């Protein structure tokens, strides 16, 4: 087998100043990064909206995804099979900002599945959501809820 030619590399810099060197062909899985490279020809790309921890996971995803091997789906599940909802939310924000459709789709579905399993109180607690219904509205919603669970 002939040696594969040298692949072009780019450096991605996270919001907390961590740097990741990746092949350009993998980095451009992200439409955002692809546009930056095409428009600006940069080799060091700052990503102020993604922290290092999340960026590492995203790069792992893109790397596995771009090889096109059949192990893709197995890896995707592992990569996203985190008990911490906050990690999934960070990945969703990153996938959105970096415009990686397949990752966005998968993380969205994962978060949806997690929410389905939670009670309303749990959702409010975990996501720090304030119950901003008036007492009258709250009563109406409880009636609605009771009917749905009848």
């Amino acid at each position, binding site marked *: 087998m002939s040696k594969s030619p040298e692949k072009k590399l780019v450096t991605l810099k996270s919001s907390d100043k961590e740097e990741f060197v990746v092949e350009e062909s993998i980095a451009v899985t992200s439409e955002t990064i692809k546009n930056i490279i095409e428009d600006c020809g940069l080799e060091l790309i700052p990503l102020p909206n993604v922290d290092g921890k999340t960026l590492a996971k995203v790069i792992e995803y893109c790397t596995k995804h771009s090889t096109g091997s059949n192990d893709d789906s197995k890896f995707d599940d592992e990569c996203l099979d985190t008990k911490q909802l906050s990690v999934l939310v960070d990945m969703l924000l990153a996938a959105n900002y970096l415009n990686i459709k397949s990752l966005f789709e998968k993380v969205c579905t994962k978060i949806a599945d997690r929410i389905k399993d939670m009670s*309303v109180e749990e959702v409010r607690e975990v996501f720090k959501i304030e119950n901003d219904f008036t007492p009258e509205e709250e009563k109406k919603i409880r009636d609605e809820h009771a009917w749905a669970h009848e």
Partner: protein
Amino acid sequence: MNFGFRSRSCRVIQDSSPAAAAAMAATQEEEEEREGLKNEEKCCWGNMPLELLREVLMRIESSENNWPLRKNVVACGGVCRSWREIVKEIVRTPEVSGIITFPISVKQPGPRESLLRCFIKRNRSMQTYHLYLNLTQALADDGKFLLAARKCRRTTCTDYIISLNADDMSKGSSTYIGKLRSNFLGTKFVIYDGLPPHAGAKISKSRSTRLVGSKQVSPRVPAGSYPVAHISYELNVLGSRGPRRMQCIMDAIPSSAVEPGGVAPTQTEFHPGNYDSFPSLPFFRSKSSRIEKFLSNSLPSGQRDGPLVLKNKSPRWHEQLQCWCLNFHGRVTVASVKNFQLVASPASGQPARPEHEKVILQFGKVGKDVFTMDYRYPISVFQAFAICLSSFDTKIACE
């Protein structure tokens, strides 16, 4: 998803079998995991743009198409205002999606393209009727509870109170939907809606309609009685030996609703709030029939094509079987005088069209106290249920 309280029908049963013990252990594990999750780093949803929240909620909505899991969609609408707004926007009416979601769905027209299948269970001793949505192809299954009705006999009439809550059937309750009232003889019925069917609708002050003044402004009332349909039963020309004739005048639905491009009024909320903001309805003087007078009160201003009239499809006499037959497509299995199919009747002077062939409501017996009820646009579950209740009540041609 749930609010953390048991549903009304839940009963705790003591069971000391090994299977139960294993199940208990599994539940305990789940509980511990839940506790663990709560104590972990809580993420703040505050950073989440509404567009992304919408994407997540859309996935929940599209994956939970059937009951009982559809309850998760309703639950998402109860988290906070922004979640509720998004869910309400994503969820489409039964007319479009064929799916019942929020309780208001029972007040909205059924699907245009197909019949929505339901069944009714009668409890003779309690004088109650429970309406369920079919969950499977079976004639009656566990079902999703929709509405309950309780019969209240009075001196000069009978009322069927209809409610979202089987345990609370009082008219003053927040779960009150409406009622069916029959006359003394059980030959004529009126369906009353607890909410105005559309802007400018008149509340019924007494059984007779009184039209006062040249301009009417809708009163500000939290719940009332808005007549929305009139049902009548008559013997056919063969007397009680033949199937009875049914007629339903749907005062709040224009006859144009069944025509191509037609629309039917659709309520969107249970508490429309300040009715004073609705435009006043001019009073139309009319010397013609009572229906016309009623019409000017009931239909949205500008609609002058008459209310939708539903009539029962005439059964055919089967010479060999020596009985009256209707094709219920397998949904009705026991012969009964109560069984019927309703179709839209063409407006007077108009020729019959293909839309007048479609069965809009079908009702029939499948067991001792079990009946199927299939309905579609332009009537709602509430209206369909009330019409079926009248079939239980009427004494015409019952022997």
